[in-house]
């Protein structure tokens, strides 16, 4: 038992601590608005995990991931807007009946499922064209940047259907038998979903599939010569990541009770990328810890110094990235790795010495061989 416990990497203990903290947070006696904010942060953790799969593990940096998040949020947002016929933002534009393509969304379950499937399908569609045509690296990032911009313009221009810059309000916490869930009940629903997502991602990243993803990040062209088709793997990972991003949007919007155009923008995507970078890429823990730290730092700093909190946060982020390029958790994992492999590394040196002694003996013993490689 002790041996198996020792085998668990240090960051998995940090994960457990983080989740315990999340679970007991509402019991610590903070004011309600703090608990409300924590609920949004937990929803954001799901989002950060989904992006970590794509960026941290597979090396695909997306600047448009918030669009997939927004697809989840907007589906559930529209659902609550159309409960009592066409909402004000539609009638203002002369649409007095709920458009037929919105009607199925009136049912919450349908809206929820669409909120999951739409970003997944979108990721598959986009991934198919991007990865099959061998677009990779920075070009993937540029395409996602364009996507984010197009999506934002689309939502802004389709005011009659999306309420444009005003966003969608009045999103309820999934009413069961008429009444929306209480704030505390919803908090634990989001926390439970986050833990499920985390466990799923642990399974995924520990599987051979996850290791192939890492191999693609490390050396995509080499992966092909081992018989893998990297495009297929990237499409599947993008789809899973899209699904989880949609899920996080579906969790976030009711916690916030609204979803706005800002939350699908490049800025929103970048913010999550920063959270992951600060926490550390490609280990899930970094996404969780980074999101917790940055989101809370953001809100607490802005309360303390409303005018220049961005400046302070910016400097802190720069310092962290400068001194710990692999992020906080990445740094901790590296330290643990170098302690763990200290003995093995001594063996590298030993084996190198062995090579020398073996070949020296051989030079003397087997003259023909010795000649053959010193002759060149």
């Amino acid at each position: 038992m002790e041996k198996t416990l020792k085998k668990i990497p240090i960051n998995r203990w940090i994960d457990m601590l983080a989740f315990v903290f999340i679970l007991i947070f509402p019991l610590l006696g903070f004011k309600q608005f703090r608990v409300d904010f924590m609920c949004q942060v937990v929803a954001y953790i799901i989002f950060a995990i989904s992006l970590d799969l794509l960026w941290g593990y597979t090396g695909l940096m997306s600047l448009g991931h918030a669009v997939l998040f927004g697809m989840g949020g907007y589906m559930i947002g529209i659902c609550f807007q159309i409960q009592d016929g066409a909402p004000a933002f539609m009638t203002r534009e002369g649409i007095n009946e709920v458009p037929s393509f919105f009607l199925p969304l009136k049912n919450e379950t349908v809206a929820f499922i669409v909120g999951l499937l739409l970003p997944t399908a979108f990721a598959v569609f986009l991934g198919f064209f991007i990865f099959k045509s061998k677009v990779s690296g920075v070009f993937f990032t540029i395409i996602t940047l364009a996507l984010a911009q197009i999506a934002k313009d689309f939502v802004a221009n389709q005011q009659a259907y999306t309420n444009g810059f005003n966003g969608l309000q009045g999103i309820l916490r999934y009413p069961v038998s008429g009444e929306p869930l209480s704030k505390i009940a919803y908090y634990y629903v989001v926390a439970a979903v986050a833990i499920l997502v985390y466990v799923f991602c642990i399974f995924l990243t520990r599987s051979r599939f996850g290791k192939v993803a890492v191999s693609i990040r490390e050396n995509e062209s080499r992966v092909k010569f081992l018989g893998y088709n990297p495009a297929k793997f990237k499409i599947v990972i993008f789809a899973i990541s899209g699904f989880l991003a949609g899920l996080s949007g579906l969790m976030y919007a009711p916690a916030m009770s609204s979803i706005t155009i800002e939350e699908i923008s490049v800025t929103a995507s970048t913010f999550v990328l920063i959270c992951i970078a600060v926490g550390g890429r490609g280990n899930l823990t970094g996404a969780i810890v980074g999101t917790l730290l940055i989101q809370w730092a953001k809100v607490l700093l802005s309360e303390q110094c409303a005018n220049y909190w961005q400046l302070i946060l910016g400097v802190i982020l720069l310092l962290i990235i400068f001194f710990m390029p692999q992020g906080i958790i990445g740094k901790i994992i590296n330290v643990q790795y170098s302690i763990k492999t200290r003995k093995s590394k001594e063996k590298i040196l030993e084996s190198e010495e062995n090579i020398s002694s073996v070949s020296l003996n051989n030079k003397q013993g087997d003259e023909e061989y010795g000649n053959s490689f010193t002759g060149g």
Partner: protein
Amino acid sequence: MATALLEVKNLSVEFSGFKAINNVNLKIEEGEVRVLIGPNGAGKSTIADLITGKTKPTAGSVFFKGVDITGKSPDEIAGKYKIGRKFQGPNVFDNMTVYRNIEIALSGYTTVWKSLFYRRTTEIKKKIKALLEQIRLYEIRDVMATELSHGQRQWLEIGMVIAQNPSLIILDEPTAGMTAEETFKTGEMIKELLGEHTVIVVEHDMDFVRQIAQTVTVLHQGRVLAEGTFEEIEKDPQVIQVYLKDD
């Protein structure tokens, strides 16, 4: 006559007007060890690229076990037709442990579905252990590949190719950049491979070739200049001229 394991027919490739490979014919039988030699720019690595699908030929074709594999994608050639390749590099996964590098190369789990439900069984563990011992890296299996010495990285990649369980192994300059000691060990390692596998070795170093070669093909400026046993090649006046001129 039975079909050869690999047959290259009238293969040519052009890079913006420059004929890197010009009408090359090769026939490699099952169990054979073939060495491709030639001065820099002779087209040795380009032939490896053409066989493994990295480069598409402008003319000619490649047959593997009688099947035309010309222009197929690298992952199909590696996965379906089982041609394994070691690059000139060493070309390994830097930020992954030695163990994972070998594990990811194991054949038989290359589809998305199979990779999701792959389990590291005792049998697989034994296989990987034996392989790591063969390439002398078992003791340092939990170290990241990026921390290995140049020679150890070359061995790791040779190990990855063996893990693929290929029908044909192409080793592109397996001793490039190695110290004399490392070259010696690598020679030993490759000798272990011979006999069990069909191997094509691309080499630059004539002395290394002497140790391992059965049949040698000499390339020069994209053409086959000579083919025969090492002794025949050594005495060939054309080959001597090319090598004297270039070295």
